[in-house]
């Protein structure tokens, strides 16, 4: 009996479909981003997949981008929303540069801007469907933070989005330490990305690693990881147990 009322109320809250564009569900999505602090700065890793539902549709999507001189951003979730976020960020940096006052936005400020953007969109029931990682170095201070599509934000020594939270962070909790060298950091990230490749359905074997230090930003060329399939248990798993998996 109250169904009609609540539907009407909900419709008023949500507005009609024709009025506005709202992201109801994502279409082309990127999966996990993993980030760690290391001795000289920050390392981010993300694969280059853009999934369309369960189809691995696009395999050369750049999900790690520099922001100004001092930050890098990594995004998972809806790719079109990430592209929109990049337009906003590029505009932010441009206006900052136009002051020409010798000051420049650091990672902490960019992270805060992203947080406000995500939270305010969430409050209007029209979220940007992304989970973001923002890392950077300014004046010797390392910064690594994350923002979710509903505006949840925090900083830490290692962060991840999506499946990375469940698969990569336990590895990082165990093996991360202060003052990792670049080589150690890359090896650690590759260990995480390999596990994600095995266990995340939307992972793709083509990734990039981004590094940011006081000197600046570099993003690696795309490359693929070797995987291991020759454990004896994999060869004949159902020998003696027909019908099992």
């Amino acid at each position, binding site marked *: 009996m109250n169904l009609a009322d609540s539907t009407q109320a909900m419709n008023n809250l949500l507005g009609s479909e024709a009025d506005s564009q709202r992201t109801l569900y994502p279409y082309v999505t990127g999966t996990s981003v993993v980030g760690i602090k290391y001795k000289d700065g920050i390392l981010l890793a993300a694969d280059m997949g853009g999934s369309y539902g369960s*189809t691995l549709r696009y395999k050369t999507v750049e999900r790690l981008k520099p922001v100004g001189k001092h930050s890098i951003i990594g995004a998972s*979730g809806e790719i079109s929303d990430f592209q929109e976020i990049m337009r906003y960020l590029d505009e932010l940096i441009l206006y900052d540069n136009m002051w020409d006052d010798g000051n420049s936005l650091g990672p902490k400020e960019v992270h805060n801007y992203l947080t406000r953007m995500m939270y305010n969109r969430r409050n209007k029931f029209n979220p940007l469907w992304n989970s973001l990682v923002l890392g950077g170095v300014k004046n010797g201070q390392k910064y690594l933070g994350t923002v979710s599509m509903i505006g949840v934000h925090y900083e830490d020594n290692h962060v991840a989005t999506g499946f990375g939270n469940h698969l990569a962070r336990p590895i990082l909790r165990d093996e991360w330490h202060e003052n990792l060298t670049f080589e150690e950091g890359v*090896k650690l990230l590759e260990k995480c990305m390999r596990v994600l490749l095995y266990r995340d*359905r939307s992972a793709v074997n083509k990734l990039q690693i981004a590094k940011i230090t006081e000197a600046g930003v570099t*993003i690696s060329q795309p490359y693929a990881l070797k*995987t291991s399939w020759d*454990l004896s248990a994999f060869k004949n798993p159902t020998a003696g147990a027909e019908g099992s998996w």
Partner: protein
Amino acid sequence: MDVSSGDVNGPHSMGTTIIGVTYDGGVVLGADSRTSTGMYVANRASDKITQLTDNVYVCRSGSAADSQIVSDYVRYFLHQHTIQLGQPSTVKVAANLVRLLSYSNKNMLQTGLIVGGWDKYEGGKIYGIPLGGTVLELPFTIGGSGSSYLYGFFDQAWKEGMTREEAEQLVVKAVSLAIARDGASGGVVRTVTINKDGVTRKFYAGDTLPLWHEELEPQNSLLDTLSAASPEPMIS
């Protein structure tokens, strides 16, 4: 975190790629090895090609539980049938037993199966048994969610009267192509070849499969290319 929505009333696509192909003298069955629960890969090296008798195997797709219980029942019935018959059962009998279970429980089961084998009367035969319990005897058939990506490929690449090697290569190539595009398929390619001489299981691991469009040669680490190449292999 990710919401995958869609038409919840539409036919459920199954997480797998399975293939059955006849050749001159026998059959080749092929499958990927990924079992997923939602977006998590629960088993990256599963064996989806299950034995029913010495000469008949079945490729399973869809619900792991449903396909396992159906194949368990059919194996049990076929065992009794073989004893009573006094000789190896035919592939057609195996397929019909699967049909009896799939058809009469069509409202509850969600599994698509490919039955393949060799018997002395008909030689190598493949039967496709999709959702609902239809049985179709076919020269080749594909199933599972990954099969969507292979209809065009098979339309072009399938030929009557292939040799054993050609059939095996076709199956491995096809499963590998499906793995490249279907998130629900992955891992290794398993094949089972059945003919008058018996059964051969093969296993093609990730790195031994061909590379397709936009796929790169795997390497141990980024550090290998960084030290090998000079100045800036990293671009900003």
